[in-house]
């Protein structure tokens, strides 16, 4: 049989028609849609063994317990650990996305560690008699803090600085005990203390929030007292006077913008629905005085024991409050930004530096913090790469010890601040965490909580090696608390903040920063969901004004404007909200904005 071209065509044609009656062509067309999902440019998630690891979040002092979901060795999700005695299974949005932090585009990849060390040594050598070389530890109480203190004790002119803190680090607020809480602008439900602990205790206390703006906390408070900006002390004084049956009340009430009636009823509530607790965003003595008056000390404000440290560490520099250092006295300043508790405005630090040529070295994950002002910025590991412990939070009645065990290895070129600073003094620092754990085990108090089985065990029953192992697997040691022997806390001497210049005629508005959390720690790119892709949180360089104020300033919704304060000016984008009190500019805190405004400052808005 001869095969002609016609036969070939017939064969091919027949095959095509026949193929249409098989699933293949239809299936292929259908699947083309699935393939198009995987076009180049769209990343494909890596596959691998799914594992679970436990650690503790080092982003803030809350140190919430974390259950990480890993694919191979790569964490792909972080979640809280339910049943945890401190964090009660919660994780804030910052903690939930912390596994993205190692990949931040703004992250520092390398820094001049050697040059910095030489420069520091040289500068220390040049220190004058009244000048000092200081380490500013933004999260005191860590094992690293002890290393700094030990190093500073042996370095000439050495000084260990800690930021001002309301309770001085050795006392805690006991929310579980409180029945009525009066908060002067403390962000109680927005990242204050250990969020899980606050939420767990929230059912049991009545919350009165005195604050000029309706913050997240204010909107969920049982009572919001919309006071005038800067009148917290007046309100405290008025309440104190009501409680003590003293006059006057009316002039203070007038300052706050509240009625005497309102203040009296708050005072009565505090007095009759005890135990009461007065919280404070800053640290006004008036609030502490109220606590004293209400008998909160020893009941809702209690002393907390120090987490044990090895005896050999006791020869350490004392903790000096930054505020109490004389201005212009620090020649060398090393700032550990790798673990922070909030952002201090640069001006409070800068005024302590010597005028001529101070040396500032900062250990940071990016240049966005104090790196803007430092000669040397040394890159550090970022959580969840760090190997660090987390001191107990402000609402943790018991001492605690937990370690942020690294979930991923830090990249090469990172500088460990404690090794660097210990190196200055010639101290070994590598094993400090293990030594601390052994010291705790030696003390033998308290319990060890392990997450995998959500079990607690008395520390006495755990072997030292197992204790260390458990800590590295995200375990948490909690000190025993003697409920019967509530101790009176030893509170630091707080000085009244300098009287704010109240007659600022050229700066008619008050700028109040909010969202301070964002300024303190690195943000995952996914936080754009909160700051950019929704307006749930106020994005950096955005400001909210009352429409009346905006009209007076000549700015409109969406306009760009200049915010001016005593410390400088910045460009902001305006939005309007009649819920903001007239005369107030609500600005989103970024590091730059805190440098500009602090917590609150007289300000002016002019159209750009």
């Amino acid at each position, binding site marked *: 049989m001869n095969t002609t071209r016609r036969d070939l065509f017939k064969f091919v044609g027949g095959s095509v028609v026949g193929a249409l009656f098989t*699933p293949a062509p*239809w*299936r292929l067309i*259908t699947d083309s849609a699935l393939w198009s999902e995987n076009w180049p440019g769209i990343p494909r998630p890596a596959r691998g063994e799914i594992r679970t690891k436990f650690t503790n979040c080092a982003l803030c002092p809350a140190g919430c317990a974390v259950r990480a979901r890993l694919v191979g060795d790569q964490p792909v999700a972080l979640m809280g650990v339910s049943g945890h005695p401190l964090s009660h299974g919660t994780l804030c949005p910052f903690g939930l996305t912390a596994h993205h932090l190692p990949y931040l585009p703004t992250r520092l990849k390398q820094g001049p560690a050697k040059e910095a060390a030489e420069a520091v040594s040289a500068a220390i050598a040049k220190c004058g008699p009244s000048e000092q070389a200081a380490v500013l530890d933004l999260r005191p109480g860590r094992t690293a803090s002890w290393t700094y203190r030990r190093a500073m004790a042996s370095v000439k002119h050495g000084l260990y600085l800690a930021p001002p803190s309301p309770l001085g680090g050795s006392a805690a607020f006991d929310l579980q005990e409180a029945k009525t809480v009066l908060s002067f602008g403390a962000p109680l439900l927005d990242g204050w203390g250990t969020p899980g602990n606050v939420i767990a205790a929230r059912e049991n206390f009545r919350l009165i929030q005195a604050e000029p703006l309706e913050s997240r906390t204010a909107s969920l408070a049982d009572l919001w007292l919309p006071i005038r900006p800067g009148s917290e002390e007046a309100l405290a004084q008025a309440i104190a006077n009501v409680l003590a049956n003293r006059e006057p009340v009316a002039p203070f009430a007038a300052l706050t913008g509240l009625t005497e009636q309102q203040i009296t009823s708050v005072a009565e509530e505090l007095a009759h629905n005890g135990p009461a607790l007065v919280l404070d965003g800053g640290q006004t003595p008036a609030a502490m005085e109220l606590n004293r008056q209400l008998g909160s000390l020893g009941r809702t404000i209690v002393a907390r024991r120090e987490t044990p440290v090895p005896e050999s560490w006791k020869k350490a520099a004392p903790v000096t409050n930054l505020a109490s250092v004389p201005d212009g006295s620090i020649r060398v300043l090393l700032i550990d930004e790798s673990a922070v508790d909030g952002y201090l405005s640069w001006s409070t630090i800068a005024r302590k530096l010597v005028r001529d040529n101070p040396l500032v070295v900062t250990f940071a994950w990016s240049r966005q913090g104090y790196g803007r002002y430092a000669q040397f910025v040394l890159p550090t590991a970022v959580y969840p790469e760090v190997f660090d412990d987390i001191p107990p939070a402000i609402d943790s009645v018991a001492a605690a010890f937990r370690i942020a065990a690294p979930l991923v290895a830090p990249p090469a070129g990172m500088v460990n601040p404690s090794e660097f600073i210990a190196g200055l003094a010639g101290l070994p620092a590598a094993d400090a965490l293990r030594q601390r754990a052994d010291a705790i085990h030696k003390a033998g108090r308290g319990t060890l909580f392990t997450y995998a089985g959500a079990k607690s065990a008395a520390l006495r029953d755990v072997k030292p090696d197992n204790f260390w192992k458990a800590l590295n697997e995200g375990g948490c040691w909690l000190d025993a608390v003697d409920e019967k022997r509530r101790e009176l806390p030893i509170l630091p001497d707080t000085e009244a903040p300098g009287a704010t210049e109240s007659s600022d005629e050229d700066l008619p508005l008050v700028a109040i920063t909010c969202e301070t959390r964002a300024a303190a720690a690195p943000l995952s790119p996914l936080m754009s969901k909160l700051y950019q892709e929704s307006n749930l949180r106020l994005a950096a360089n955005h400001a909210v004004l009352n429409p009346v104020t905006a009209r007076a300033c000549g700015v409109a919704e969406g306009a760009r404007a200049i915010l001016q304060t005593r410390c400088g000016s910045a460009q902001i984008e305006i939005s309007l909200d009649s819920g903001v009190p007239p005369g107030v500019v609500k600005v989103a805190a970024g590091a730059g904005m805190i440098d500009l405004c602090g917590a609150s400052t007289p300000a002016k808005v002019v159209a750009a």
Partner: protein
Amino acid sequence: MFPWNYGFHWGAASYIFLGAFYTVLAVVATTVIFAVFRSRRALAAHETEEIRWHSDFHDLPARDRVCRHVFTGEFKSRECPHAFDCRLCETHAKLIAAHPPQQSDETEEEIFGMSFPVDCLYHRGHAWARPEADGTVTVGLDELGSRLVGAPDAVDLPQPGAIVHANGTAFHIHKREADVRVLSPVDGEVVETGAPGRGWYLKVKPINGQMDMRHLLCGTEIKPWLMREMERLQLALSAEGAAPTLADGGVPVADIAQSYPEADWDAVCGEMFLEP
């Protein structure tokens, strides 16, 4: 919609909707396929010329499509339903039967100074046909047609042996911007063509026996028809912006085209030679 698509659910609505859709598609496709099929058949059957004429006829203005019996006053107004092919027309047959065409008394109609011999039969497209003794038919351009093209720039005559169709193209004439076809009055095979010097004519032999020329104008019809043609010419000329000289009864000059250099001669010729 097709088998093996996951997640596709059939329901009554699907049947109705897709049924309607495919019906529509089928109708559209059938229409197009049908048209293609018919075209192929027509092309194969060499019906192009016929179709061209039908298509042209359809595009003629209504006043140009009037029945020849309107000229003779038998109808007040009537549009030709057969594209000037009276051989198909029953009405024409009836009318002819009732009033057989009268031969004109004269041998030549003199209209506006143009001669129209009565021994010729005239096509509405200004071609004449004269049956010859040898059974062939001579086809030529009538006087008005000749004057319209005057001295043509070029003439394309068919080769002997070519087939012409009634209402199809007899030959092409180029004059100035005009490029017109002279429609053939009869069917047949070209046996001889005229030379340029002697006027252009075709000698056409009927393909099978007798030539049917019922559809051509003859006798007393010629004059009213020509009167109307002159009106048309005037209209065409005035539409093209030529001065209205004919209305005054003036005699068309031998080469009208030269008299109206500003007129769109293509349009005028198209109009007069029934080529829209």
